[in-house]
């Protein structure tokens, strides 16, 4: 039974993490609403016109292609740092990884995802 306390503590703490700041702010903070404060939160420049506009799907494809480089960076940096201590296996694994990612780039290229239409 004692072990279950850990689960209970975990559940309670994880439920408290979001509720305590929100409820605390609501209970303790002074409330002086005005028009500016109660408007929907938006950062940056104020919007012009309707916000329900269609975005070019190409932004999304660019984000996907960026992922190729992103992942490459995340894994290749530690690989490069430890390079001179790696056995042959580590080198082969890294090369296979680079080839696989390069293929993804070639795929995107051939499919015309890199052309801005």
């Amino acid at each position: 039974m004692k072990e279950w306390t850990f689960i209970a503590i975990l559940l309670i703490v994880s439920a408290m993490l979001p509720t305590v700041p929100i409820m605390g702010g609501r209970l303790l903070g002074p409330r002086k609403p005005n028009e500016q404060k109660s408007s929907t939160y938006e950062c940056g420049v104020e919007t012009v016109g309707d916000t329900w506009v269609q975005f070019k799907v190409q932004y999304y494809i660019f984000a996907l292609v960026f992922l190729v480089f992103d992942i490459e960076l995340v894994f290749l940096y530690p690989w490069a740092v430890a390079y001179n201590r790696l056995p042959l296996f580590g080198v082969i694994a890294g090369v296979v990884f680079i080839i696989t990612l390069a293929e993804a780039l070639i795929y995107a290229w051939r499919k015309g995802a890199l052309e801005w239409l």
Partner: protein
Amino acid sequence: MNLPTLESINLAASLPVLILAGWACLLTAIDLFISPERKHWTAWLAVLGLLASGVALGFEAVAYSQRGAVSAFGDMAVVDGFALFLQGVFLLSAFLGILLALNYLPRHNIERGEYYTLLLFTTSGMMLMAMAADLIVVFLALELLSLPLYVLSGFAHPRLDSEEAAMKYFLLGAFASGFLVYGIALTYGGAGTTLLSGVVEALVGGGPAPNPVLAIVGMGLILVGLGFKVAAVPFHMWTPDVYQGAPTPVTAFMSVGAKAGGFAALLRVFLIAFPATGDTWGVVIAIIAALTMILGNVVAISQSNVKRMLAYSSIAHAGYVLVAVAAARYPEVEPLAVSAAVFYLLTYAVTNLGAFAIVIALERDDGTGVEVEDFAGLAKTRPWLAIAMTLFMLSLTGIPPSAGMVGKFFVFQAAVQASVGDPLILTVTIIGVLTSVISAFYYLRIPVMMYFRDGEGQANVQPALGVALALTALATFLLGVVPAPFLQMARHALLTLAG
């Protein structure tokens, strides 16, 4: 630093998976240079890859019969009879999945080479799943299995129901993967390792300060994640919409492959890593099995769309396999129950792929023509199709002479053996038999439509589809009449703790 060496990886043992995954990568690149009118070349190249993998699998099987199970990737994967048998089932399903799509894709104007490469990727994921002996590999294989399937279910892209299917499947699938990862994390926290053989040691005792409760909670979350993949009842919501919306060859392959992949992981994880907590999960899985069989079979009755009906039928069949999983927790029943489960998956694979092949033959180019009424009068216009469909429906119900009957017989045999001194399993077995009777109502409605109702009964059987139909019908019949050689193979499909 303790890095693996080339020797500890034992590449030869995992050659079937590596060939398939490597060929899928290569084929993705090759396909870029195949002109759009010649996409069937990609299909045949994909079949070539499956053949090569099949040959490697054959060599593995011969080697296995001589030296027994071996481990690969430093004990993170194990090649045993269980893995080899299921890998054979996956390769067969993938081959049939390609045959089903060969004429379907151009007819529906969605022919893209990616279908075949994605099919190879998901098949390699399933094959990896069958040999996963580490929770991380289970997760890796599950993602490799799922991600291509998400894309494939949206393959009929401009069609809205296909896009809806892909979206639903992706969102709910990602959610289920989250459960699985969290379960793995908690199991790791409780047992101190992700190796299945290490988890069992930690739970039985003797490991450094194991925390069994964390591992039990983790086990529950893993059950949720895998239950989603096999479409067991509280986690089945996605199945009807996805099966109905996805292009029919994808549905056919998904209903067979993803389910068998999920069960491969479920059987191995629960029987190898958690035998010590069998009292806990045995009860849960038995109840889930009962609910799955009842809901799947009862809701299927009210379906008029055949794809949707087969979706509920696939939920129901997951329930029958779960009965075998629940029975397998008793060590003396385990060999029988495991071989019953994998044999059931084989019979379900050939039967369901055949039934979907008929649906593909009836489906019109705009995706309609898959209602039960569309089968009316098929016996007059297409007598052979009608005979084949009757055979598949008999097999899904479990009436001889068909594969389904033998499969169900062995599942229930294992369950009855396990039910000695376990009233819950006995109840679940009785529910299983009763729901089989219920299922006859909706399965046999289709033969009734074909033989006793007048109608036009249009069908369009193109060569590749005809071959697939002939193969599945023959397999369904043979497995029902002379099951002995295949049963013999299934008997060797035993789970081994890392080799």
